[in-house]
């Protein structure tokens, strides 16, 4: 590990492989050493592919040039154990791979391992994983967030060059925020869900978790695109995210959300500070009023529980996996609640009301985006919570993700970039940047401008950017 190749950002790694300065094999080996050294304590990976098991490395004519990529364990890979962090699937080897895995491999991504998550992606802490919680590599007394906590931790701990997570409402951005990394939730329908074990089908969005915004742009370009196997993916062309990053944000109109919401005393000042930075780069920033996210908590929870109860109905232990007695408490709670909200006589009161209120959020975003190019808010109300925190409330996840739920139920893209680092705890806060549907380019552009003009990114110095 003397070369510290595991610390390379994806962009830097690709450049060094290209120039012959290093090889993907060496980078992979360094990341793997990092896993071997840290995984026992941090419980980031549920399964790994050792460098010797890797057949690839000889195909450099690809975007990712065989760089090691960590994949959340709710994404199916043919004949590799895929558990969704539940004992229901403890030994399940899918007969097929997710489309995004096909895309990743096509672009030369080498899967270094499958990362831990909240079981079935139910949660924002990784504490509901039936294979034990993941610890935050920045400070192991704290949680990494979730549900893509393993992928965020893998990036934070340099156990991979980049990672893939999935977000239903916060599951990419919130752990990215808590682990001090970059997490991009694409527009719903931008990245195929085919082969991603469904949590809430109407909001599930796979996306990259990376060291820098540029890395996120590189990864998104590899994952995005229409998939004939997923009817909710878009036919729209995938823009060249990487080159669009360089566009100036001068003249962009940016709305600052949620400054009036109580309970955001910790995070909100840093969002204002970030707005100042963006303003100094020529953007016009203004405070905006938006529909209270507390309603999004209700809408999201109802819709998600309903879809969860439906999506988990296939796990009967007949064709694959173990039977329904293996579900953990959180899954049981969600199945029961979702079943209840869809029942005769209750669907009118819960599910249908939630779907109508969802429309109000979509309308509210349309209103805001008619005046603003992007919107910013805190990613999470606060820093990473200490381990065990999720056990205090059955609504832990929903409340931790409150600020991300409005954009998630509206299907909008958003990114979390570090916007503060607490030297004492070594923990981070994240800035959430959102744009209209299909405008990941705008989100990336603003995030990149912010990242390169601030010192919060822990890799930029190491990589001499």
């Amino acid at each position, binding site marked *: 590990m003397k070369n510290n190749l595991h610390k390379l950002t994806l962009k830097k790694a690709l450049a060094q492989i290209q120039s012959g300065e290093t090889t993907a094999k060496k980078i992979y080996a360094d990341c793997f050493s990092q896993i071997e050294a840290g995984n026992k304590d941090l419980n980031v990976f549920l399964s790994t592919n050792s460098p010797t098991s890797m057949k690839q490395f000889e195909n450099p004519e690809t975007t990712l040039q065989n760089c090691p990529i960590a994949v959340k364990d709710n994404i199916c890979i043919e004949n590799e154990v895929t558990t969704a962090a539940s004992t229901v699937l403890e030994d399940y080897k899918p007969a097929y791979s997710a489309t995004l895995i096909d895309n990743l491999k096509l672009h030369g991504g080498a899967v270094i391992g499958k990362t831990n998550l909240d079981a079935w992606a139910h949660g924002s802490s990784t504490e509901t994983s039936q294979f034990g919680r993941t610890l935050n590599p920045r400070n192991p007394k704290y949680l990494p967030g979730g549900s893509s906590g393993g992928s965020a931790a893998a990036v934070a701990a340099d156990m991979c060059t980049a990672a893939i997570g999935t977000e239903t409402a916060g599951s990419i951005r919130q752990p990215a925020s808590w682990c001090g990394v970059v997490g991009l939730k694409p527009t719903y329908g931008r990245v195929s869900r085919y082969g991603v074990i469904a949590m809430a089908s109407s909001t599930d969005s796979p996306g990259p978790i990376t060291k820098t915004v540029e890395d996120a742009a590189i990864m998104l370009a590899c994952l995005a695109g229409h998939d004939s196997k997923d009817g909710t993916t878009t036919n729209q062309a995938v823009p060249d995210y990487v080159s669009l990053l360089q566009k100036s944000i001068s003249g962009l109109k940016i709305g600052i959300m949620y400054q009036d919401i109580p309970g955001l005393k910790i995070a909100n000042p840093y969002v204002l500070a970030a707005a100042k930075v963006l303003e100094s780069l020529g953007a016009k920033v203004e405070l905006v009023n938006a529909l209270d996210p507390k309603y999004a908590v*209700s*809408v999201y929870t109802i819709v998600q529980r309903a879809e969860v109860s439906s999506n988990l109905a296939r796990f009967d232990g007949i*064709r694959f996996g173990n039977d329904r007695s293996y579900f953990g408490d959180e899954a*049981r709670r969600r199945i029961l609640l979702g079943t209840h909200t869809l029942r005769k006589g209750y669907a009118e009161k819960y599910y249908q009301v939630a*779907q*109508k209120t969802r429309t*109000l959020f979509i309308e509210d975003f349309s209103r805001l985006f008619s005046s603003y190019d992007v919107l910013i808010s805190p990613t999470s109300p606060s820093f990473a919570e200490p381990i065990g925190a999720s056990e205090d409330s059955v609504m832990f996840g929903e409340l931790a993700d409150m600020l991300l739920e409005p954009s998630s139920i509206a299907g909008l893209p958003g990114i979390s970039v570090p916007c503060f680092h607490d030297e004492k705890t070594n923990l981070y806060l994240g800035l959430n940047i959102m744009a209209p549907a299909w405008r990941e380019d705008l989100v990336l552009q603003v995030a990149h401008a912010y990242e390169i003009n601030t010192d919060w990114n822990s890799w930029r110095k190491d990589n001499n950017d």
Partner: protein
Amino acid sequence: MKDLIKLANLPISDEQAKSLESAFSETLEVFKNLTDLDISQTEPTNQVTGQENVLREDKIDEDRMLTQSQALQSAKHTHEGFFVVPRLIDEK
């Protein structure tokens, strides 16, 4: 709660059910705020992409079809190419 557990097809003991019940009402309590908003003129959103008519042509996709052994590979109980479950009905 018992009906619900049956409807959800969850093998849960009465004791476990009891512990789930408090979480249940705690969550339902949160939803009450939805009555604050006027949705009388609002249409529900079931899908956010606005896409319509995403259909397949009627063609066989051999590439995606599984062999019998692939189809059965993850099942705990199989017999001569079938999946197996305990007898569902008595022969009439």
